[in-house]
């Protein structure tokens, strides 16, 4: 479920900025780090930290895009590729220096331990993650599909030039999309940070999963990215149960390679390009 949030943020940023942000995974880790910091400082439980982390990372997301994405839009794609990878390294190294490389634990949402529901024993944290994640995904869906703001955000992603020509203030909506993407990443970091700890080097892994989700679901499609993320989660859990984590990841990567070899356009995506 947390991966769904990461993928959602990733695809929103992709559509808004028109380029892949390789630093997105590190924004997730940054979110976890902020949760740890503020949590230790204030002693608040995770659920109350949520809006703070969202705000902080929303701002971070916008700054990241202003620095490494938007100024390079006119240049060939290698430029944003390198810039966002460099940015990812910057975030990772800064976190490393700040924490001395030691993993830290983010505060749980509503306390750890388990809960018994009609005979089933469920972990509180995983349950809380599913609930919070679902609420957020639903909220974002509502925003995009049922509000004027969401409609305008989608219009801007669909055709930026035309959006301007009908009077939509494009800059404002791009910033909004990027802030939302950052906030989602940050919240995901908070959610994941209790069970899986906050380790500065995790950024690349998160980014890879989001990238795969978007590629599977159709480049730029929001529902596709969500389905892709849920699919990856399900696939990993399934394989992991039988063969262990390492095999789960290996199977995922092999699967992606095979898929790209056979269907260069992803499962539902756009055609691979002219036969040149």
């Amino acid at each position: 479920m947390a991966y769904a949030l990461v993928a959602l943020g990733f695809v929103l940023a992709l559509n808004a900025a028109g380029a892949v942000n390789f630093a997105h995974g590190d924004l997730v880790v940054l979110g976890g780090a902020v949760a740890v910091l503020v949590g230790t400082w204030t002693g608040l439980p995770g659920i109350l930290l949520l809006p703070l982390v969202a705000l902080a990372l929303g701002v971070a997301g916008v700054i990241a895009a202003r620095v490494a994405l938007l100024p390079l839009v006119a240049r060939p794609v290698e430029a944003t590729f390198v810039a966002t990878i460099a940015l990812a390294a910057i975030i990772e190294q800064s976190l490393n220096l700040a924490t001395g490389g030691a993993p830290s634990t983010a505060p749980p949402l509503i306390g750890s331990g388990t809960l018994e529901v009609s005979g089933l024993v469920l972990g509180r944290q995983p349950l809380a993650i599913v609930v919070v994640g679902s609420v957020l995904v639903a909220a974002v869906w509502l925003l995009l599909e049922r509000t004027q703001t969401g409609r305008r955000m989608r219009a801007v992603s669909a055709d930026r030039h035309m959006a301007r020509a009908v009077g939509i203030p494009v800059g404002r909506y791009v910033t909004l999309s990027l802030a939302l993407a950052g906030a989602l990443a940050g919240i995901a970091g908070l959610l994941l940070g209790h069970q899986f700890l906050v380790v500065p080097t995790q950024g690349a892994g998160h980014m890879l999963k989001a990238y795969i989700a978007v590629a599977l679901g159709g480049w730029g499609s929001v529902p596709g990215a969500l389905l892709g993320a849920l699919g990856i989660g399900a696939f990993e859990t399934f394989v992991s149960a039988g063969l262990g984590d390492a095999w789960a990841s290996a199977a995922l990567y092999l699967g992606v390679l095979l898929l790209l070899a056979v269907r260069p356009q992803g499962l539902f995506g756009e055609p691979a390009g002219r036969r040149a």
Partner: protein
Amino acid sequence: MTALVEIGDVSVSAGEIVALLGGNGAGKTSLLETILGFRRGRLRLFGEDATSLSVEQRVSLGIGYVPAGRRVFGSLTVRENLEASSSLPAAERGRRADEMLALFPMLGERPQARAWLLSGGQQQMLALARALMNKPRLLLLDEPTLGLAPLVVADLLQRLSAMAAGGMAILLAEQRAGLALSVADRGLVLSRGRTVRTGTRAELAADPELADLMAGG
């Protein structure tokens, strides 16, 4: 009659349809983009110097734009295309969208359809309805008849006439001069960015060299 837009040799006043003619590369689209603000150029809009205004500012003064190729927001539904283009508050916006759907029956039939599924003619009507959402005083159209069936073309041209009769100023860029001149009051012919002919509808229609000029001579 004050001109609503004045740029170079071109001016359009309320209630008139001006045809902007010329072959490919003659400069029609460039001119429209300059009026909107995508390209730099001196011009007056609604009586004031608009040279330093942004695209969003000019559009909010009252310009509607129907671009070449229609460019509807493909992933949005018909209704969403209309609503997203409006800066009105929610209730008024909904009512205005309803008005447009009623005015364009082929859109009113399927307001929930994704725009990329529509036919060329339907997309053209959507592009027009979208441009009308903010009640513009000046309407710019770039080759709206391209690829449309004759019946749809006739319908479109008739609507433009009706709008002009209601006070709209319309600048209609077209390569197919005959179509544009059938509704325009007057027109000018561009070639390589310069105006090479101006005249009333009658004068231009009678011009023997018009076909050559349209082919780009």
